[in-house]
């Protein structure tokens, strides 16, 4: 078992030892630790600490669980001169992320029509295990445009507006994207999947603001109690997964080539200065842009669905984008390290950027509040809106948690769901769920997830994000 030293109520350290180049820093509560220690996630935090060029600690957010090489909920930054980039530190679903839309509608107005709304989402937004669009066949040149321009491609082609772009991390376009670095295999997979939700824990959810923790912050984000909101959670689909797989193969060779010792094969990486490292970042950016475009398109269909069900125009509905964040990504960002400004490659795998008030990368409208952070919970409970803080910038390179984190295997979840009608149980709680497959719903039961409130409270208590509002689901579509 990994040695842990408690720092305070929310912080635990894995002391540096053996091949670790730095310490590990875990954000968690005492109550969460026992569960965390049940799988190998802490060993993974220690493994990441062995990688060359790591700056600051190898970190884990409170939603930590076992992943590939890097744990899910892992954050690690590397300097550009000696550091590495690792596809395992980003994940298979490149730019899996979340966006939050607000509306002008109060809960009372929407609640009676939730079932219609969920069914309309279901008809307008392809989801499920085999989700492909039959109506939208992308040509290769167009797909390359999508990968270059991201959400901007969406806006240019009639999905949403320019105003949306100002409310997306990196304006919905990661710089340096190079579609030529994306394999034909990846493009083949992505070609029919733009504008699809996928499956697993991806969803579109209509809900409402249950509680506001900070009136001033909420007002600036355009949120009010009882307001109806929509969350979209999805990523780069088969295109991103293939890019990850392609580059894992490249990195396995690169790690050998550059003499990088790996405690775990899935930590395979290449120096940021190497051609392999640069190619991966360019391909990753391309896949990330595909995901931004994907969420932009799904947003358009969410807006259309509301218009169809409520027979109201966009102005009256007010379906505005609050913000869109990536939670599986590597970003080159400028941070202060030992008093000096330094460019770092920050890996966030199942972790969200959380920049503070005043940061130049935070949209002007949020310059005083800090960057909105969206943390989805499981479909039966709640989700949270927070903002980034100076403490996060100083301590975690501006990072925080991403969601509830799974606690139970799918197999165990299916066993627990056996004989129950999860759909009926949720309906009894006032939540309409529609899934493309029964198995997906059963695997996604609340019991399979950590309580996201606990996760969020740790980040709030540790000061790396600040709670703004709690959202409750009314209706969900799942793949």
């Amino acid at each position, binding site marked *: 078992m990994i040695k842990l030293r408690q720092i305070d109520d929310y912080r635990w350290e894995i002391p540096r030892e053996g091949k670790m180049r730095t310490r590990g820093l875990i954000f968690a509560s005492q109550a969460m630790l026992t569960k965390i220690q049940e799988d190998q996630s802490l060993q993974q935090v220690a493994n990441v600490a062995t990688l060359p060029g790591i700056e600051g600690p190898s970190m884990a957010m409170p939603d930590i669980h076992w992943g590939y090489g890097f744990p899910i909920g892992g954050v690690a930054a590397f300097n550009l001169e000696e550091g590495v980039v690792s596809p395992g530190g980003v994940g298979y679903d490149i730019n899996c992320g979340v966006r939050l839309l607000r509306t002008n509608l109060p809960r009372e107005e929407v609640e009676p029509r939730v079932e219609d709304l969920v069914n309309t989402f279901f008809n307008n937004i392809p989801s499920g*295990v085999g989700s492909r669009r039959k109506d939208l066949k992308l040509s290769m040149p167009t797909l390359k445009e999508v990968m270059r321009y991201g959400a901007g491609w969406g806006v240019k082609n009639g999905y949403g507006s320019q105003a949306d772009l100002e409310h997306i991390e990196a304006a919905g376009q990661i710089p340096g994207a190079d579609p030529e670095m994306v394999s034909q295999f990846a493009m*083949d997979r992505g070609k029919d999947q733009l504008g699809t939700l996928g499956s697993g824990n991806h969803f579109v959810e209509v809900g409402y603001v249950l509680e506001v923790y900070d009136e001033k912050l909420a007002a600036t984000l355009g949120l009010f109690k009882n307001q109806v909101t929509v969350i979209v959670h999805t990523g780069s689909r088969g295109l991103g997964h293939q890019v990850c797989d392609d580059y894992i193969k490249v990195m*396995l060779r690169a790690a050998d080539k550059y003499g990088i010792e790996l405690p775990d094969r899935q930590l395979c990486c290449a120096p940021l200065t190497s051609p392999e490292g640069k190619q991966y970042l360019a391909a990753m950016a391309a896949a990330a842009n595909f995901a931004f475009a994907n969420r932009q398109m799904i947003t358009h269909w969410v807006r259309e669905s509301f218009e169809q069900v409520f027979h109201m125009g966009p102005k009256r509905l007010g379906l505005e984008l609050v913000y869109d964040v990536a939670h599986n990504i590597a970003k080159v960002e400028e941070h202060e390290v030992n008093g000096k400004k330094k460019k770092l490659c920050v890996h966030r795998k199942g972790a969200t950027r959380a920049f503070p008030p005043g940061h130049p990368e935070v949209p002007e409208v949020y310059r005083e509040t800090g960057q909105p952070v969206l943390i989805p919970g499981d479909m039966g409970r709640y989700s949270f809106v927070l903002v980034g803080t100076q403490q996060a910038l100083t301590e975690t390179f501006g990072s925080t948690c991403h969601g509830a984190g*799974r606690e139970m295997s799918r197999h165990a979840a299916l066993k627990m769901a056996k004989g129950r009608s999860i759909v009926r149980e949720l309906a009894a709680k006032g939540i309409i769920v529609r899934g493309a497959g029964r198995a*997906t719903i059963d695997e996604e039961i609340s019991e399979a997830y950590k309580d996201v409130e606990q996760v969020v409270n740790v980040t709030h208590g540790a000061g790396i994000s600040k709670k703004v509002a709690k959202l409750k689901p009314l209706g969900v579509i799942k793949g």
Partner: protein
Amino acid sequence: MTPGRPAKYRQLSHTADLAWRIRGASLTELFENAGGALISTLTDRRFLRRSQVRDLTVDSPDLEALLVDWLNRLLYLFDVEGFLGREFKVVELSPQRLRARVRGDIFDPARHPEKTAVKAATYHHLEIKRTHRGWQATVILDL
């Protein structure tokens, strides 16, 4: 199933993803059963017809990587063509090359139950080893 004969594949415990323990009397059978395990994750294999054929060739640096690449190739075919294998026949297998003929169906949500989406087969805890009964592999699928 014959009593005392181990299952072709079974799930191991894993929090977020799916770990399969695959068995085979021979290496070719191991790879065939791995294909079966993957498809059984995506759908119920019993509903798949044998109406389509795909001949595949996969090249990889070593046997373990070959297993991952084989499964990822099947995922690629599913994403791009909707193709799901019902029967797997490995025709040639060396540590660096696999050739197989796969008979299967094209995914149709009306006929095929949707089970669990798979993002990729991974190298995490990847292992192929000999046992007293033949061969055994562990492969984790990222969901």
